[in-house]
């Protein structure tokens, strides 16, 4: 009987086992079916790419496969004697597209099959892009476990047929390195953990009131606002993080929150403060403020390649604008009240970001206050209201986040 037909019959026989029962995969794939057989993964499991259009020039898959093997063993010696049957010799990965640039809405789908018939027996991954294949390897690693009695890596409930794709293209985690500096190793640990649960956007809230830890070559005194001499990220550090994440299919969204949440900027450049006694938000009347924003975004554009940049715009308390004489004068001269000025600031910052090739994400207050004036491609980042009560977002895209107060 032709192997394909045999395979088909095997699957039909098992067909009734669906994901209704206890499946230890997280997150749950789109469709899962499995059987009842136990297989083992060879000590010398290998990765092949027969039939693949993608050649893995950047070793994305090769390195991921090695990481996966290490994860499966988790420091134990898998040195039991390989059984003569039911032994998976490796994984064959077919990637249909040669594209290996990570980007928003890249195809992350994959099919993973672990058959019980085949000579040699191997798992098969098919994905449109290398990033789908990475997810497939994660899922495969969750099917495997170290067996203490046999000292082999076991894989239960075969054969498996998994077809998976994410429901949403943006599945993010925000880290805040301004309130507390996080060493690079910690950030990389977070990225690794994100891949285990298939999260794919690291939203790096780098700077805020309390500290400015990142190097900005265009304005080198900005990082004088770091907590201390050593609680800093150089530009090469940032590049390192982006590369580390990219290799794992994780996008890095940089945030530079303006005009509020920016008190730390003035440590290096006090002219950015409305006054020495009133230090937030950034001085809207000063052209220098926007020059600095331009410098920051220009430096970012060389490092952060995700198509979006986050410009913040939340929790803007404008009293320092009305209380500082030169700003009050500027408002009068320009026939603006503080709400106009807030809107002016956000929109001007948006334009700067767009000029550097970015699309913009803003926190929801910007939408709540002047949603119809925002750039039409703006993504609104909800954080405050649990239900989208505040009117329709119209044509704006939206990301849902937890409320900050939780």
């Amino acid at each position: 009987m032709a192997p394909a037909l045999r395979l088909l019959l095997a699957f039909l026989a098992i067909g009734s086992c669906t994901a209704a029962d206890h499946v230890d995969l997280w997150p749950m794939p789109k469709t899962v079916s499995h059987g009842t057989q136990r297989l083992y993964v060879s000590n010398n499991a290998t990765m092949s790419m027969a039939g693949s259009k993608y050649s893995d020039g950047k070793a994305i898959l090769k390195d991921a496969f090695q990481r996966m093997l290490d994860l499966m063993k988790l420091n134990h010696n898998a040195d039991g004697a390989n059984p003569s049957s039911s032994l998976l010799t490796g994984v064959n990965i077919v990637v249909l597209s040669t594209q290996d640039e990570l980007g928003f809405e890249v195809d992350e789908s994959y099919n993973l099959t672990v058959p019980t018939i085949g000579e040699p027996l191997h798992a098969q991954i098919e994905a449109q892009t290398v990033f789908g294949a990475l997810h497939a390897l994660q899922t495969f690693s969750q099917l495997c476990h170290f067996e203490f009695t046999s000292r082999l890596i076991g894989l239960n409930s075969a054969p498996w047929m998994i077809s998976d794709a994410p429901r949403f293209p943006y599945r993010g985690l925000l880290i805040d390195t301004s309130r507390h500096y996080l060493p690079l190793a910690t950030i990389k640990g977070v990225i690794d953990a994100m891949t285990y649960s298939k999260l794919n956007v690291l939203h790096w809230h780098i700077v805020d009131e309390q500290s400015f830890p990142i190097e900005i070559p265009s304005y080198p005194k900005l990082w004088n606002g770091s907590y201390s001499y050593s609680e800093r990220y150089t530009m090469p550090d940032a590049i390192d993080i982006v590369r580390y994440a990219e290799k794992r299919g994780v996008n890095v969204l940089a945030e530079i929150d303006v005009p509020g949440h920016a008190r730390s900027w003035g440590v290096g450049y006090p002219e950015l403060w409305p006054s020495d006694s009133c230090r937030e938000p950034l001085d809207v009347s000063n052209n220098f403020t926007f020059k600095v924003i331009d410098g920051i975004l220009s430096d970012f554009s060389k490092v952060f390649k995700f198509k979006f940049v986050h410009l913040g715009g939340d929790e803007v308390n404008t009293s320092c604008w009305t209380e500082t004489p030169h700003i009050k004068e500027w408002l009068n001269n320009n026939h603006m009240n503080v709400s106009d000025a807030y809107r002016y600031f956000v929109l001007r910052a948006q334009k700067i970001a767009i000029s550097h090739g970015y699309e913009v994400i803003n926190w929801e207050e910007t939408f709540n206050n002047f949603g119809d004036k925002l750039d039409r491609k703006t993504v609104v980042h909800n954080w405050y209201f649990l239900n989208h009560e505040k009117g329709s977002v119209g044509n704006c895209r939206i990301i849902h986040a937890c409320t900050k107060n939780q």
Partner: protein
Amino acid sequence: MPPKLLTHLILALVAVSGAAAARRHPAPANFTASGNPVYIWPLPKNFTSGTQTLAVDPDLALDPQGAGGGAAAVAEAFERYRHLIFSPWAHAARPASAGYDVARLTVVVASADETLELGVDESYTIYIAAAGGANSIVGGATIEANTIYGAIRGLETFSQLCVFNYDTKNVEVRYAPWYIQDEPRFAFRGLMLDTSRHYLPVDVIKQVIDSMSFSKLNVLHWHIIDEQSFPLEIPSYPNLWKGSYSKSERYTVEDARYIVSYAKKRGIHVMAEIDVPGHAESWGNGYPKLWPSLSYMRKIFPFGLFHLGGDEVYTGCWNLTPHVKQWLDERNMTTKDAYKYFVLKAQEIAIDLNWIPVNWEETFNSFGGSLNPRTVVHNWLGPGVCPKVVAKGLRCIMSNQGVWYLDHLDVPWEQVYTAEPLAGIDDTAQQKLVLGGEVCMWGETADTSDVQQTIWPRAAAAAERMWSQLEAISAQDLETTVLARLHYFRCLLNHRGIAAAPVTNFYARRPPIGPGSCFVQ
């Protein structure tokens, strides 16, 4: 002292004497010549420093010398420390415009003997200076030690002297030239891990071992088994590990061997504990008749000391169980006699296997006079025990639960730091019987998710108490100097991937109360 070391010592003293005469004597405890606290933890025994800043070459090369310099353990340790010193800044580093002052680290190890035993020589000297300066004869950096383990301690200190400069983008050594001569006050500086109340994956144990080496702790007391779970494989009694919490919360024999070998590379002993006769409920899951296969364990755990437990023995079950009561009656034993009988029998078995038995203090409190004279008594119940133990001629390890039980979250770092193993012991001969001490990370309320932030930074406070000289650490002002240095060390631990908790919270392992710098929280 090997002749080469003596020569260097003389040369170093001659070299430094050209500078301000005040610096000929060891600097005031933990201050550099310029008056800054010395950010080395634990504080070395003797040191002098200067005012120069030296640039260190990221391609720092190892120059191994002496009979032991070529040991694989030295080369591996050098690689680990090179990674710690340079890798976080590998991408940012810019070539030094004026060249590097330190391009080579010479490591001289006098002895090729790699035996790791309690009391092995852990002393070392470090000399760092720029070449060709008016005050120096030799340029570069040199570590000298009698054993490879002293060299490993020296490498740790060296790594703490190297700091990344965010302006010049180079790794530097400040306050050079440095001359450091160091050795520990106590030979036994332990941390206890409890893998019975919660299983800790091998990776977590490895990370704990790494963090121990950063503060020069040198004994991992592995409390493997207790009432709640039996996670270790005992090949001759393969049903015992059915007492594990689950099929995956287990250690194979290879895991145990691997941990011992991983620790040895860092000069850390692993002292295993099989707590008998109490704390052994989990054994009943596998075998009704209980006796450990200690001879098998002897091959896995080469450390000279083996912990036999013997604490908190509630003998009620012995009286209530008919066949045990019958056994007691036949021998005219009370349950107290039986407890003694059990402990002493276990001791005999251990001694036959060439182990020195360590027992918790109840054994001493109940029948101290009958304990084998080789016994090391492990104090834990409270203060004032070691004085009684050493007065009887037995050796002692201090773990007074009031100060050195890490699961007691309400013991702030100051109390950990000021606990003194020799308190109440004035006789110098008796003082020698105190091997050292141990901080205990009991696992009832600590698991993988929070074990490291419970251990650190308080274990570091105890680590300095056990390593550094009494006079020097007593001379420091706790809330200014020591705190500043401990803050610095905590930030260093964080930077090395160890989740050390904020220093100044009253309760251990609490999160920071608000935003702030590592150096002040």
